[in-house]
């Protein structure tokens, strides 16, 4: 900044979007929460004093994982549709995202039902149960919160309240969904590959 004369028409003044900054900050904080739960899970692998063990009871949820990860693609396609103002396409991709998320959460529900009623594994059975239900449950909680948000946005889209000019906000919300999907990669690796 050498001697530039004082005048209000200086260089263009651009600042990052506050929504994006805030969502990225929230994601940073969430990452720290997940890190602590993941570290606890890894530390307690194989430390349970009684059964059942992960090898005995866990099945790899392949269909669930495919659904959740592909929902990141569908939400990205939805983002592109709303950017171009194609609201019907947006609503369709958005609804598909919700459906994929719902399949995931239903799959988790069925998995837990089997673990609790067939294998007798609850949160108090052993350390595996404690860490498994907390970590997977923490992630599932985030999926549920995401699904609620996604559904509200779908309802508002169908009533015509979400329009092209909201595409930035939609993208900010989509960041959260991408985060939930990315965390699943970590949780999946730790719980179903490393821990099993």
């Amino acid at each position, binding site marked *: *900044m050498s001697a530039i004369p004082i005048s209000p028409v200086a260089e263009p003044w651009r600042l990052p979007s506050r929504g994006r900054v805030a969502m990225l900050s929230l994601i*940073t904080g969430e990452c720290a929460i997940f890190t602590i739960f993941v570290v606890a899970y890894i530390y307690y692998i194989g430390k349970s004093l009684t059964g059942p063990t992960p090898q005995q009871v866990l099945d790899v949820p392949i269909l669930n994982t495919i659904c959740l990860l592909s929902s990141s693609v569908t939400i990205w396609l939805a983002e592109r549709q709303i950017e171009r103002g194609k609201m019907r396409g947006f609503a369709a991709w958005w609804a598909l995202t919700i459906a994929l998320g719902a399949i995931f959460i239903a799959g988790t529900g069925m998995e837990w039902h089997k673990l609790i009623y067939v294998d007798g594994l609850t949160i108090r059975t052993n350390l595996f149960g404690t860490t498994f239900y907390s970590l997977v449950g923490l992630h599932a909680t985030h999926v549920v919160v995401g699904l609620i948000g996604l559904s509200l946005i779908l309802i508002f889209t169908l009533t015509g309240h979400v329009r092209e000019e909201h595409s930035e906000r939609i993208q900010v919300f989509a960041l959260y969904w991408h985060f939930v999907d990315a965390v699943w990669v970590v949780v999946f690796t730790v719980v179903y590959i490393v821990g099993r």
Partner: protein
Amino acid sequence: MADQTLPIAGTLDVTPRRHSRAMVLEWLHGWVVTVDHKRLGILYVVYSIFFLLVAGAEALAIRIQLAWPNNHFLSPELYNEMFTMHGTTMVFLVGMPILFGIGNYLVPLMIGARDMAFPRLNAFSFWMTAFGGLLIYYSFIGGFGLYGMGAAPDVGWWAYAPLTAKAFSPGHATDYWALALIVSGFGTLGAAINIIATTLSMRCRGMSLLRMPLFVWLMLVTSGLTLITITPLTAAQIMLTIDRYLGGHFFDTQAGGSAVVWMHFFWIFGHPEVYVLVLPAFGIASEIIPVFSRKAIFGYPAMVAASVGIAFVSLGVWAHHMFTVGMTSVGNAFFVLSTMLVGIPTGIKIFNWVATLWGGKIRFRVPMLFCIAFIFQFLIAGLTGIMLSVAPWDWQLHNSYFVIAHFHYVLVGAIIFNIFAAIYYWYPKVTGKMLSETLGRWHFWLFFIGFHVTFDTMHFVGFLGMPRSIYTYAPDRGWSHLNLVISIGGMIQGIAVLIFAWNLVRSYLRGKEAGNDPWDAWTLEWAVPSPPPVYNFAADPTVYSRRPLWDLKHPEDPDWKYEG
């Protein structure tokens, strides 16, 4: 300012006269539903000062109990509750809210914005924090459920396992502790997100990152650190709650769990937390010292770099709280060295503050007195910190009063001193009235003397082997006289804080009018009226240097000629 375009406004009051009770309710309602960053900032600070008095009273109860051997002023159970609540209150209900409150008030004003990035999130964050405080204090009545008088948490502010297990801490007191801190933790998280979004996305034209006042920089760094510091505590407390309510085994050693894991999780939060508290205090000093030395801050880019450096290093030092737990020698060496590394960026900061004083025309007003005391006390706190970072030294003095003396030198000698400095410095901006200089000097000198009588002496009882958190001690230990001295110092500090509280009230009612810029300062908040209007700036300001008001006052010699 531009709001004087209609001088006729207000001369004709057309609103019908109302009942005074309705007026009070309306006034109260205005404060409850407010989303104005200035009002929320004031709410944060008032809330924290209230809890400062409460936690101060708890500290005095502890000191009366320890003043002489075999004393029974408090029951052993109540004593445990007192030191737990003193620590928890000071960290979570005083330190963080008051600093975030000051930040809330000042950050938008300093960067030339009209409000925070998310005003409603801001209100939500404050009320979460406030309800967290109420929840934990409710445990005094409700901690045992309906069985008459309850019990507050009594597990220490660090709440080590397995003491927190249901078997050893029955009742609900520990649950109140965990839940209250989860709730207020979400409030803090919201406040941090808001400050980051505000500083990055709401700056006025020309306010580039390297022109932001250092206080704003430090709030930004603190908020970033908060994101990854408070959340591990939230995670650990969710685990503790799962253990206590759902029968989980995270910290249950009998089922293969580990108590040491809690220690790691707690200190992964607990040590950076110290920096969450001290970094805004550094920011306060970096605003006040230049103004009262009549010089620009020395080494601005180095100050920014050192702040970011401290935040990074602070994430890798937590296990120096756990040397006595037993680690491998590699582990010990790593945490010794990483802890010593903190000394470098903090040393840079102390050097820059002293260099700012050097050759300045120093005005010894009350804010400056607190800041000068801060520099030297923080230096001593840093030196005892380096001593404790040496693992063998720590094995000798761990959990002794030496440690208590060290961290109170940081928390009181550095943070509380700078908070007082900030209140003396910005009170005129917030209320439009100057705080009384005479009462301020009484406050400073009494607090300064009381502080040193208490905490200097604590180092020595620590050397003599007095452990922390003990209920009482035998007369033959040689600690009796020193403990009496410590307690007397505590009383002196208590009197000083009461003078301060009186000063706040009295000056509000009959203080001198402050005007826009009583200290002849250089940052944007002094360009607006005191107290600032709701919209802060009538026209969006544009800045060309780090000291926009200097440029305005000295058009013949503006800063932007030299910066860059």
